[in-house]
């Protein structure tokens, strides 16, 4: 498979504290890759590094071109959508406005209303709350909104930061099912960061394991799932 994103020798720091140490990984085009790890392993920072939201060193290539020296706004324009930690909802704007913002950089303005309708078909609950202030949505609805907002970009690569965080299992199941649909039907590649390893490995085909800012293991989801040590530390059986 062709690599959509290639990361090599990535380091990142908040102030003087280095949190990523020489990380390398690739994301295949059309695939779902997951990054597993405990709290503080550097998963969120890895996603932030890709979008130039933290100070980084090393090389990040997207479709062959280097993006590590570009600004967040430019990287979005290349087709990388990011559902950030904490969902990044525009709380005071309506659901509809949140979704429209997702399509802000798109050139094909005429296709935007159609995509809006598509999001509302994926998540009918959002349609019911279309003109409601996004801050009044439940956690699950906000996660649906965050995912939809990212998809409104029609991204080539979707970065998801713990979509299951703080949500009821049923809601999580819904959201993951739709992520699978989107990956298969629209060929959107995904990088999924998760603490819930079971869930993530079910969805993903490639996995990386992070520990204190380093990649300590990588392989297909199958391999990772069957690894004795992983099973005990992260899957819990």
């Amino acid at each position: 498979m062709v690599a959509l994103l290639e990361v090599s020798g990535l380091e990142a720091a908040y102030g003087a504290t280095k949190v990523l140490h020489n990380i390398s990984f690739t994301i295949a085009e059309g695939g779902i890759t997951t990054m597993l790890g405990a709290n503080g392993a550097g998963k969120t920072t890895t996603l932030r590094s890709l979008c130039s939201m933290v100070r980084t060193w090393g090389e990040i290539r997207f479709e062959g071109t280097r993006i590590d020296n570009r600004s967040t706004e430019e990287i979005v324009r290349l087709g990388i959508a990011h559902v950030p930690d904490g969902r990044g909802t525009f709380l005071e704007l309506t659901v509809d406005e949140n979704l429209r913002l997702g399509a802000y950089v798109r050139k094909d303005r005429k296709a935007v209303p159609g995509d809006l309708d598509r999001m509302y078909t994926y998540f009918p609950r959002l349609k019911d709350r279309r003109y409601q202030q996004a801050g009044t949505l439940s956690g699950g609805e906000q996660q649906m909104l965050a995912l939809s907002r990212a998809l409104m970009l029609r991204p080539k690569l979707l970065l998801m930061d713990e979509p299951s965080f703080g949500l009821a299992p049923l809601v999580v199941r819904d959201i993951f099912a739709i992520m699978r649909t989107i990956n298969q039907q629209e060929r959107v590649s995904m990088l999924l960061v998760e603490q819930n390893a079971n869930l993530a490995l079910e969805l993903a085909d490639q996995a990386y394991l992070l520990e204190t800012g380093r990649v300590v293991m990588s392989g297909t989801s199958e391999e990772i799932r069957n690894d004795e040590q992983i099973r005990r530390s992260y899957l819990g059986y």
Partner: protein
Amino acid sequence: MSTFLHQVFSGLATGGIYASVALALVMIYQATNLINFAQGEMAMFSTYIAWSLINAGVPYWLAFLITVTVSFIGGMVIERVIIRPAVKRSSLLGVVIVFIGVLVIFNSLAGWIFSYTIKSFPSPFPEQALFNNTYVSSHELGAIITTLVVLGILYGFFRFTPLGLAMRAAAQNPVSSRLVGIRVGWMLALGWGLAAAIGAVAGMMVAPMVYLDPNMMQGILIYAFAAALLGGIDNPWGSVLGGFIVGVLENLIGAYLFGTELKLSVALILIVAVLVFKPTGLFGKVLVTRV
């Protein structure tokens, strides 16, 4: 009754001016949490630009258009060249000092270039009152309508255009805005440009009523502060309503209670009263958030 109505209408005319300046203040406040103390002086300087153009023989509405455009660009340049580096490098207090510096610079610059003598500024509206009524002069009516048109255009821009939506988003949540590709820095500059353009319109509308001099906008800025606080400093449309309320209140109190000498204290009393008793103002936003 006739005097009362006259006071109300003329209050609405000046209230529209306060509303415009208050809106300009709120726009910048929402995006940066800073109050632009130089807003009034920027508007005054814009009015001098219009005055120079009109004196040079440019037709009024063309001069109006040029002034608004120049002010818009000027506002953006001020943000890019002066305010942004100050915000980046300095503390909050430092930024406030920079604002005051800009205020003094514009005031002195106007005095130096145009002298401190009071000048009359033409009104584009007919001298005679509409239908020869005694309640409202044509200029007052024209000023009210102009203000409403400006507010309507702004409302449409913020409510219905992708760029307006992006500006609102950038003011609320800069981090998420970058993640959807909004160039937040430019949105701030654009906000400054719009604020300066609104101020320019306000200046040109008020100048025929109060005459043009470098200190023209100082009192008006205080009324605009009062309006913004009364309406809620984080609510643009509240601040607009606040402007009209302050304008009418000022006139009525001036006519029936204190006399015109103490008019400005109405604004100051209002500022103190709002801050003490209802800091969010009448329409200050209470955001509902569910976790």
